[in-house]
């Protein structure tokens, strides 16, 4: 097979095209965050029930979405490494895990800070909160496993299995609020009928979600480039590049 995917998916090409793309992505990301935060914190109206406090939604909800999205990226990348031995897949999975863990942590902390004034408690053991906490442990388990095994190939294989087993938790998190009685309310945006949020409040939320996603892509690309350099440090192209840049 001679698909262009194979070429652009090879670590060497990924290194150059992701490096070329990254200033543009960073600019786009800063712009999105500026617009999203401004419209979310100043332009969007206060909520009829929660008043100004509802604005934490613009930090909390995109973080929770990212915690699931990054897990999907990590598990798919790890699966491509496990099944087809795509080296870049293993590297992307390794690079994504800490980002996913931080977004999960952010979702849990902001949710807890939101819960105190609204629900009257920082934490309850309902299905949504508990399954999100388990997601954090899955990320941490994956990271710990990567750190514990020195042989990168073995680490990638073991990590891929952990990541794939953990995917079972994703639908549980998403549907927890529909399957069981929970203190956390049901879905607002991803309902089959129209989202039950005013358009003026939804717009900043979507902008923030794109901003978070672009941020993830930028940082994940940079972390993957580090993984590539570490893994391919003896490859001819890395040496060439280093000489070109005058690093050695």
């Amino acid at each position, binding site marked *: 097979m001679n698909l262009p995917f194979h070429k652009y998916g090879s670590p060497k090409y990924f290194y150059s095209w992701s490096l070329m793309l990254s200033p543009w992505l960073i600019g786009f990301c800063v712009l999105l965050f500026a617009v999203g935060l401004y419209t979310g914190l100043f332009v969007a109206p206060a909520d009829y029930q929660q008043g100004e406090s509802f604005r934490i939604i613009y930090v909390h909800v995109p973080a929770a979405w990212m915690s699931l999205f990054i897990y999907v990226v990590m598990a798919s990348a790890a699966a491509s490494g496990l099944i087809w031995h795509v080296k870049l897949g293993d590297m992307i999975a390794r690079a994504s895990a800490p980002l996913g863990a931080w977004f999960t942590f952010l979702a849990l902390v902001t949710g807890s800070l939101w819960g105190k004034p609204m*629900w009257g408690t920082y934490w309850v*053991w309902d*299905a949504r909160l508990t399954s999100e906490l388990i997601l954090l442990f899955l990320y941490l388990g994956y990271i710990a496993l990567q750190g514990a095994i020195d042989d990168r190939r073995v680490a990638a294989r073991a990590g891929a299995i952990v990541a794939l087993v953990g995917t*079972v938790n994703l639908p*549980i998190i998403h549907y927890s609020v529909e399957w069981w009685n*929970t*203190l956390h309310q049901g879905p607002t945006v991803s309902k089959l009928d129209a989202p039950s949020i005013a358009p003026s*409040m939804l717009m900043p939320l979507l902008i923030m979600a794109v901003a978070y996603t672009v941020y993830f892509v930028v940082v994940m690309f940079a972390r993957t480039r580090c993984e590539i350099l570490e893994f391919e440090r003896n490859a001819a192209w890395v040496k060439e590049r280093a000489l070109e840049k005058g690093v050695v």
Partner: protein
Amino acid sequence: MTPTRKKRLLIVLAIVGGMGVAAALILTAFEKNLMYFYSPSEVAAGAAPHERKFRVGGLVVNGSVKRVPDSLTIEFAITDTAHEMTVAYTGILPDLFREGQGIVAHGQTRPDGIFEASEVLAKHDENYMPPEVASALADAKAGAMQANPQ
């Protein structure tokens, strides 16, 4: 795809599928324990535990909130639109507590049938809108009620 890759793909699918089935079985088996609260209908049907504390959740019935003078004690009814039950609570209520609001109370049923709560949490719904929209919606609803009273 080469046979080895196909085999690896099948193994991966089998692991994920197997875990999925296992998780589904476990969650079905523990379904009752995963419920954060019971509804008044379930309590009325005797599904809630009798000997220990549990949680009930429902909407605070309009006009049912009664405060005992000179104390923090409050009594109100909650409903799931099918059944109602009375809840008594002494303490500070969350800001979102109001009539028509969803709440979750943790406590035990007294011999006289009143649910004695030791903790009341407010549950907010998934709707977000500006105050003007909310009041316009309420007006429209009131208007519709007047136009064809039931």
